[in-house]
C-alpha cells in the first residue's frame, strides 16, 4: 500500500520536473533563476518570449497529448480486454492520417489539416463501430478485427498518397505521420479535453475494474454493460482523435504507459487512470524536449524519442516482474 502511495508522489513530482526541463532546455538554455523570474513575471525580453510564447504552450500540448494517449490506452485495453490494444488499434489514427494527408496534398493550411484529421478520425470511429455492430452478437474480437482491418485499409491509402504525392509535400506528410508537436497554437484545447475525459472516467473507474475482468462478470455484479461498452468506445475514440489532431500519430505512449503502471502496482483503475495521465503527460513532455534539443537545430520526430525512452524501461520492468512472479 505504501509502495503505491509512493508511486503517486513520484508521478506528481515528475510533472513539474518535466516542465522545468522543457522550459529551460533549447537553443538558449535558461538557468533556474532566470526561469523563476520569467514565471513570476519579473523578467521580460527574450527569455520571457522563449518560455511563455514558445516552450510553455508546446510543453502543455505535449502533456495533454501524452495524457490523452495514455488514458485512451487504458480505456481501450479494458474495453477490448486485450493487453496489446493501443489508441490507434481501432483505426482512429488511420482515418485521421488519410484525411490529414489528403489535406496536405491539396496544399491546405495547418488549420485545415487539423480539422480534416479530426473529421477523418470521427469517420473512422463511426465506420468501425457501424461495421462491427452489424447483425449478430457484439464481441470484442469482432470490434478488434474490424478496427485492425480498417486501420490496415487506411495504411494502404496513406502509402498510396505518399507514392503519388509530389516531392515538395512529402517531407511535411512524413513529419505529420511520425508525430509533431511543433505547430500547435491552441494547447488549451487538448488540456480541456484531457481534463473532461479524466473527470468523466474517474467515477466509472470501479466499474471499469469489473469490465476489465469480463463483460459477464461486470453484468453479474450489476453493471449496465451496453452503456459501459459504448461509453468507453466513444470516449476513448474522442480522446484519441483529439491527440491525433493535435500531434499526429505518436506511438508507444498509449500502449506502454498503462502496462508500465500495472507492473508498478497500479492495477486498480481508480489509481491507474490518473497515474497514466501523469506519467503519459510527463513522458511526452520530456520526449518532445529531447526531440527538439538532442540534434538541434534539427527536430527529431517525437515518436522516435518516446519509443527510445520507453522501450528499455518497459523491458526492464517486464523482466523484473517475470522474475518476481516466478
Amino acid at each position: 500500500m505504501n509502495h503505491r502511495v509512493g508511486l503517486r508522489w513520484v508521478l506528481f513530482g515528475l510533472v513539474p520536473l518535466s516542465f522545468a526541463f522543457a522550459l529551460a532546455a533549447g537553443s538558449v538554455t535558461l538557468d533556474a533563476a532566470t526561469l523563476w523570474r520569467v514565471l513570476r513575471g519579473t523578467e521580460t525580453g527574450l527569455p520571457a518570449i522563449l518560455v511563455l510564447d514558445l516552450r510553455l504552450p508546446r510543453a502543455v500540448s505535449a502533456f495533454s497529448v501524452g495524457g490523452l494517449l495514455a488514458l485512451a490506452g487504458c480505456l481501450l485495453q479494458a474495453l477490448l480486454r486485450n493487453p496489446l490494444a493501443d489508441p490507434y488499434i481501432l483505426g482512429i489514427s488511420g482515418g485521421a492520417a488519410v484525411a490529414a494527408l489528403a489535406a496536405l496534398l491539396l496544399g491546405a493550411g495547418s488549420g485545415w489539416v487539423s480539422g480534416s484529421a479530426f473529421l477523418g478520425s470521427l469517420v473512422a470511429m463511426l465506420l468501425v463501430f457501424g461495421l462491427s455492430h452489424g447483425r449478430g452478437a457484439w464481441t470484442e474480437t469482432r470490434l478488434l478485427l474490424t478496427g485492425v482491418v480498417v486501420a490496415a485499409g487506411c495504411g494502404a491509402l496513406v502509402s498510396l498518397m505518399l507514392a503519388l504525392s509530389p516531392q515538395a509535400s512529402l517531407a511535411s506528410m512524413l513529419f505529420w505521420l511520425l508525430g509533431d508537436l511543433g505547430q500547435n497554437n491552441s494547447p488549451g484545447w487538448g488540456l480541456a479535453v484531457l481534463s473532461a475525459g479524466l473527470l468523466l472516467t474517474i467515477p466509472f473507474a470501479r466499474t471499469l475494474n469489473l469490465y476489465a475482468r469480463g463483460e459477464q462478470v461486470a453484468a453479474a455484479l450489476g453493471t449496465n454493460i451496453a452503456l459501459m461498452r459504448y461509453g468507453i468506445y466513444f470516449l476513448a475514440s474522442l480522446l484519441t482523435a483529439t491527440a491525433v489532431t493535435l500531434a499526429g500519430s505518436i506511438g508507444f505512449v498509449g500502449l506502454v504507459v498503462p502496462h508500465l503502471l500495472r507492473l508498478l502496482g497500479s492495477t486498480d483503475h481508480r489509481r491507474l487512470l490518473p497515474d497514466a495521465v501523469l506519467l503519459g503527460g510527463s513522458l511526452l513532455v520530456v520526449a518532445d524536449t529531447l526531440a527538439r534539443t538532442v540534434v538541434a537545430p534539427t527536430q527529431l520526430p517525437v515518436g522516435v524519442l518516446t519509443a527510445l525512452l520507453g522501450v528499455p524501461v518497459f523491458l526492464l520492468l517486464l523482466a523484473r516482474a517475470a522474475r518476481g512472479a516466478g
Partner: protein
Amino acid sequence: MAHLETRKLTLHIGERALLRDLSVAFEAGQNWAILGANGSGKTTLLHTLAGLRRTDGGAVLLDGQPIQNVARRVRAQTLGILFQDSPNTFPATAFETVLSGRHPHLGFWQTEAATDHAVAHAALAAVELADVAARRIATLSGGERRRVEVATLLAQDAPLCLLDEPVNHLDPRHQIALLRLVCARAQRAGHLNLLVLHDVNLALRFCSHGLLLLADGSTSHGRLDDILDVAVLEKTYGCAMREIRSATERFFFPDEPPIESRLAQSPLRQ
C-alpha cells in the same frame, strides 16, 4: 428472503431447443444440483436464471418479479453467480479481485470501507487463502484461482447463489470443504444455492433438490432422493450407470467394464 422461480421457461441455442416449458420454484433453505450431459444447456440455464440472457419463452421470476425488471444493482445484491471460468487478462491481486465482489453494495461515489475490506478478508480466509491475499492471480494455481472466484462470490454476500461447476480444478479435500462452505449458507434465513455439478455423488451428499436435464430435452426435478435412480441417470448421461448402496448412502457410477489392456495388467486378476 430470496425466491427464484421459472414459469414455462423455454431455451433455444440456434434452432435446437434445450429446454421446454420448465416451471420450477427454488425455495429458501434448499440446495439444488443441476445435472446434465455436456451441451445439455446447464450453463445457458444458469445464465438465464441469473438474468444475463433473455428467455426464448416463459419467464424467470426473482422474488415474484420478472428478473429483467429488477434493477441491476438490486439483482446483484440478491443474486450472485460463479462462472465456469473467468478471464484474467490484466494483473490484479487476489484481494483486489475478491473486493470487487462488494461492488453491488457500494454507491456510485462510494469507495470500499473498512467493513468491505473485512468481508473480503473473511471470504479469502473461508476458502483457506488468507495467506495469498497480496499475490497476483496469475501466480496462483488453477485450484487456488477457482477458490478466489468463490471467495469473490462470498464477498458479494447475495442470499441466492448460482454456481457453475464450482469444484472444477479442486482436489477432493477442497471439493468437500468448498461445497460444505457454500451449501451451509442455505441454512441462513432466506438463502439458497443452485449448483451445476458433474459428480452425482457430490450432489447426493450436499444437495437437497435436483434438476436433471435429460438427453431428450425433457427435465426431471424435485427432491434428489426421490428423482435419482439408475434409469433417469442413464437417460441424462446416455451411458450405462450402476448404483452401489451402503447402509446409509447411495452412490452412482458409470457402468463401464475396465479397459481390456488395463484388465490384463491389473493385479486384481492375478
